[in-house]
């Protein structure tokens, strides 16, 4: 699996590129709502990319936190008069808390066992939602939700373009935050844990707590995406917490490549656009995605974006290049 290794300074060229892409997206894609959907799932995929690429943790349970964010946002919208921004942040915080609890239980095991646990917890989330159907609406989900302005009384989100601008801004900030964390001392510890957990422990890092905090941030990102999804759709359907959501986020992360946060954007874009394009042609398009995943894991382990980065690096090394001093990670 490819890993977050291409970090030099912050912010760097990819940050500006991301901004450009986000601005251009609604004009390049067939519809603004498609752009909004892409941006939402980019954050969802980012939660998987962050955990797998930086910490080496494969989580099949991010859908659970996506769902907590989605339902959390819905409940806040129903029961309070908070603005959209506060709703999203509060729901994401709920998801982060849930992720910390699940993480606390899951890090007691490592490797494949850990992955198994994340999948089990994803299933659990779905059944919890069904069990609490008085609160969650069960099979119907929560519908008819308002879409309040960004702040109380400011920044109305009535037009689909303003919704996109709002979601894209949050997306940008989330990516920047993730990049910041990855290049921080905390990020360097997570990287060390991914590389050699035993040595990290021997150096004095309490590996379990670092993993739990990383999982909490992953949960935050997934919950952020789920809450954005609720604002975007105006409803919180059961599929936001179904195990299939966890699977979908993992697929996006792998297809895009886990070597860089941009992979999440690419993977989400690929999935969302393919789904939009193919679902009217052939309802079983998921099978194509599954074959693609196998091909990528076996032949293109860096994913789509990672392979592009590799090509760019090869093209660049054709000229003489000396690594800038202070570039810490290789």
């Amino acid at each position, binding site marked *: 699996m490819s890993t977050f290794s291409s970090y030099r300074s912050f912010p760097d060229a990819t940050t500006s590129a991301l901004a450009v892409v986000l601005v251009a997206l609604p004009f390049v894609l067939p519809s603004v709502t498609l752009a909004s959907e892409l941006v939402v799932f980019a954050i969802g995929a980012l939660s998987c990319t962050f955990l797998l690429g930086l910490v080496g943790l494969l989580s099949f349970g991010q859908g659970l936190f996506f769902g907590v964010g989605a339902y959390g946002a819905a409940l806040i919208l129903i029961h309070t008069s908070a603005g959209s921004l506060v709703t999203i942040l509060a729901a994401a915080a709920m998801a982060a808390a849930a992720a910390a609890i699940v993480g606390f*239980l899951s890090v007691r095991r490592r*490797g*494949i066992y850990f992955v198994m646990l994340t999948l*089990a*917890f994803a299933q659990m989330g779905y*059944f919890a939602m069904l069990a609490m159907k008085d609160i969650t609406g069960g099979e119907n989900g929560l519908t008819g939700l308002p879409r309040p302005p960004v702040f109380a009384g400011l920044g109305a989100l009535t037009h689909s373009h303003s919704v996109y601008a709002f979601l894209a801004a949050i997306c940008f900030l989330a990516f920047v935050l993730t990049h910041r964390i990855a290049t921080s001392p905390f990020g360097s510890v997570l990287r060390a844990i991914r590389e050699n957990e035993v040595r990290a422990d021997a150096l004095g890092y309490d590996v379990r707590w670092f993993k739990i905090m990383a999982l909490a941030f992953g949960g935050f990102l997934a919950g952020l995406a789920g809450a954005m999804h609720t604002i975007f759709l105006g409803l919180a359907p059961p599929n936001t917490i179904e195990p299939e959501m966890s699977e979908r986020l993992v697929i996006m992360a792998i297809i895009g490549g886990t070597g860089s946060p941009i992979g999440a954007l690419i993977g989400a874009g690929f999935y969302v656009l393919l789904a939009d394009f193919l679902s009217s042609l052939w309802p079983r398009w998921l*099978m194509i995605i*599954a074959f693609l*995943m196998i091909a990528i*894991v076996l032949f293109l382990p860096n994913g789509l974006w990672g392979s592009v980065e590799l090509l760019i690096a090869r093209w660049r090394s054709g000229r003489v290049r000396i690594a800038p001093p202070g570039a810490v990670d290789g």
Partner: protein
Amino acid sequence: MQGQVVLFQILNGVGIGMIYFLLSVGLTMIFGLMRFVNFAHGTLYLVGAYTAFSVSLLTGSMWWALAFGPLAAAGVALISERLILRHTYDMPHEAQILVTFALALIFQESIVLIFDPLAKNVPVPSLLSGIVFIGPFVYPAYRLAVVCAAAVIAVLLWFVLERTRFGAALRAGSESTEMVSLLGINVQQVFMVAFLVGGALAGFAGTLSAPLRGVEPFMGSEALGVAFVVVVVGGIGSYTGALLGGLLIGIVQSVASSLWPEGARLMIYGAMALVLLVRPAGLMGRS
């Protein structure tokens, strides 16, 4: 009367639990042996269930299904191993997990393609469609037959594990693969047999449960989740763990369904979380 209801639920839970045992025992032994987790394990359960559906539809008889279900599942296991899985043994764990997961997805979509996305019923074999009286209880005959069939298999399995050379190799290999190969035992062969048998058992579990729960294309991923819970509760690589874990989870689900029907499936995951907290290695697991 309350006590009798609980007792009935426990008996019911044993029925569910035996199916969970059959579903999980292959997974846990393979995991212990090769540290290989097949995320398409639930697919084998799915294949067993849909074989039951199609065979009983075609022939009108469940008895053929009981033979073909496990065979179909073993066949699927064999094909996946030959074509795809064997290329992943040298890859990191994450890669193996993702490939098997993608395989599961492919099979799931194929099922929808061949059949359709809707849930279907599978009729109980007419011979077993009645009820049986056990003391004061009225128990469905089919469920009793399921318990008996599963019990027979459990005993057979125990016999193979404890009394045959193959079983000894499997048990030893679950503890240490290096030791076993140093003793000249072909670990690959042991693994293949265990993988196919484990798959057949999962398929058998699917076949048995088809008349009880019907079939639908997404039951594979739910089955995988349940199998994982049983492995966590019972401990990795342990036959007794799979048996105890399966029974415990089945009983928890059954008792919970009479107290809090919507929360029954949730409770089994709650039990898993509790075991994780208190005894992370599982009931029969080694730390």
